[in-house]
């Protein structure tokens, strides 16, 4: 595996959906143990998965390796785990991250523990892709449940926000020997038109040549000296936009995309906090018990004496998701809320 450096400017730009599709296709070509399994993933004339990521793959790989299942999340997760235990590298699909709760036992009690219980004789190489995020679909189709899994020893948790890292990390995840939960934001796929993500350019440079991006490494998306911001998915882009605004007032934000939530890349984040003395964390998962709490707790333990102000967290408010846009936008972290938190942090 060659690990590519940060993306250089180049001409080939892909959406996250395209980047993921390419990563899967490459890995399926590379290793015939890799296969897809899930709901509506390969039905002829169908959707290519709930977000179209698999479109075209059945044509190349056939129904043996793109397996359509009944709506049976426990069976899908169980099948993936069992096949992984036998040396396959499954990529199961449950459509929305909201449905992970239907197979929590398989994930928490089986996938995460089999290696340990077997005293290292077995492993569970699988990648479960989990689309998250609010898109006016209400309480059961918009959650960002990544933090539940950050609490599961034995799992790895990845959270991607752009096409370059999505591809590089997905390829690493498929080759990783542990179970990886791979969280993607529905508004960032880029497959459904730009307006959904508020006019953002949802493509990124993705080299033609094969590359991998390692699990467990954060990236600094924007350098700055005043305050460190750690954010994922939509909150990352809102943080970057807030950073632009604040730069005019002389606040120089360092914005970090953690990319892997379990294990955290403490080195990158701690180094930044030690430099800036201030930390704001932003995520769309709800506040209480969210992964931001873990990061804040670690920084409060390891970097306390560097902190010049209280750590601020901006997250979805602690309520289920309402569907009406005016309410939904109140719940999720907006650019304005992120900006206000940064300002407050810089005053404190």
């Amino acid at each position: 595996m060659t690990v590519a450096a940060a993306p250089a400017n180049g001409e080939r730009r892909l959406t996250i959906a395209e980047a993921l599709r390419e990563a899967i296709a490459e890995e399926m070509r590379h290793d015939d143990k890799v296969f897809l399994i899930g709901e509506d993933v390969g039905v002829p004339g169908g959707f290519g998965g709930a977000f179209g990521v698999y479109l075209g793959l059945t044509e190349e790989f056939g129904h043996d390796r793109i397996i359509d299942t009944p709506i049976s999340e426990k069976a899908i997760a169980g099948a993936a785990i069992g096949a992984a235990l036998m040396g396959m590298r499954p990529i199961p699909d449950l459509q929305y991250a909201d449905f992970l709760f239907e197979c929590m036992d398989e994930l928490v009690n089986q996938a995460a523990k089999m290696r340990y219980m077997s005293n290292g004789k077995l492993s569970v190489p699988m990648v479960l892709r989990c689309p998250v995020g609010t898109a006016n679909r209400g309480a059961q189709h918009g959650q960002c449940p990544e933090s539940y899994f950050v609490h599961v020893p034995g799992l790895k948790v990845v959270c991607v926000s752009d096409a370059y890292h999505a591809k590089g990390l997905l390829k690493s995840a498929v080759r990783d020997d542990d179970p990886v939960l791979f969280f993607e934001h529905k508004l960032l796929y880029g497959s459904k038109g730009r307006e959904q993500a508020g006019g953002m350019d949802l493509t990124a440079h993705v080299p033609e040549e094969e590359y991998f991006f390692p699990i467990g490494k954060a990236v600094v998306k924007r350098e700055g000296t005043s305050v460190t911001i750690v954010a994922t998915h939509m909150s990352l882009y809102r943080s970057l936009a807030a950073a632009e605004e604040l730069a005019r007032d002389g606040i120089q934000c360092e914005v970090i995309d953690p990319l892997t939530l379990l294990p955290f890349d403490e080195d990158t984040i701690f180094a930044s906090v030690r430099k800036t003395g201030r930390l704001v964390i932003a995520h769309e998962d709800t506040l209480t018990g969210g992964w931001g709490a873990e990061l804040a707790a670690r920084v409060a333990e390891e970097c306390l004496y560097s902190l010049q102000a209280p750590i601020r967290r901006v997250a979805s408010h602690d309520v289920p998701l309402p569907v009406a846009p005016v309410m939904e936008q109140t719940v999720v972290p907006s650019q304005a809320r992120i900006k206000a938190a940064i300002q407050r942090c810089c005053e404190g």
Partner: protein
Amino acid sequence: MSSGTGVERTEPGAAQGSAAVDTAHELDLYRRMLLIRRFEEQVYLLYLRGEIPGTLHQSQGQEAVAVGVCDVLQRTDWITSTHRPHGHALAKGVDLRAAMAELFGKATGCCGGKGGSMHLGDPSVGMLPAIAIVGGGNTVVTGLGLAFKLMKTDQVVVCFFGDGASNEGAFHEGLNFAAVQHLPIVFACENNLYGASTPFHQTSLVPDVASRAPAYGVRGEIVDGMDVLAVREAAGRAVAEARTGAGPVLLEFKTYRFAGHSRGDVRGYRSRDEEAEWKERDPIVRLRERLAVSLSEVVLDNTDAQVEAALDDAVEFARQSPLPRAEDALTGAYATVIGKESTP
């Protein structure tokens, strides 16, 4: 079949001889089916125009099931529904304006704009907020049945679910628990041949969901879900059994959704021939033809006009209704608030 472990098949049209329904009643069934059809068609347009946010799962073609089943229920009986709840809601009596306003995300919606299309419902008419987790209602419904049994009311609850949901663990646990507890529940499967894009026959070696009833020692029955009178009759029997403690019953309605799975589905996974075949069996057209024998065109057209007027009114109501207050999003998760209600 009267034993507790068989699967019965009601032939299409078998219910037509039923004396229980007079023409006025039939006209009412027609009106209610048409209301659902036109509601679905209208909200689709409103969605395309951007007046309705989010997504929609629609039930054109399946109206006979919703209307036929709910027709045999009391107001105090309950239903649970799915990601595809519009028809169930209107059939059970959720206020048309409140349903429409909910889709618009307005404060006057039946869930105050918090629920949306996939969570339509109103406890005051006996409908839980619809559960958009496939199979989600199949376990929760047992609690409604259990409450009615423990409280010794004679209420019944109907659990609507899809063919796709019948492969969920929830189907198994819910039906088995209801069976051993003899709960007053009718499990009403709307088998529209597909779970999203996946054909049912690719997800189960048994062609009929009702064939699973014997595994739980309950009665199963296959019903023509495109014939509202057949639906009504089968549902009537099942509800009566459930009400007297002889339930639960598993009914399987063979039906078809004329629209896509959700907005934007171009239905490439099924053939236009298949669609045309099922369109031939349109439950609304069938009942209209039947009614046309005894009623004049004028009466029927009048009914159609009533439906249009009601819908226009509902759309207008939804449009004019105020948006929810943004800050209302932050309250309502708890009945008894301790400290702050949510993070500020």
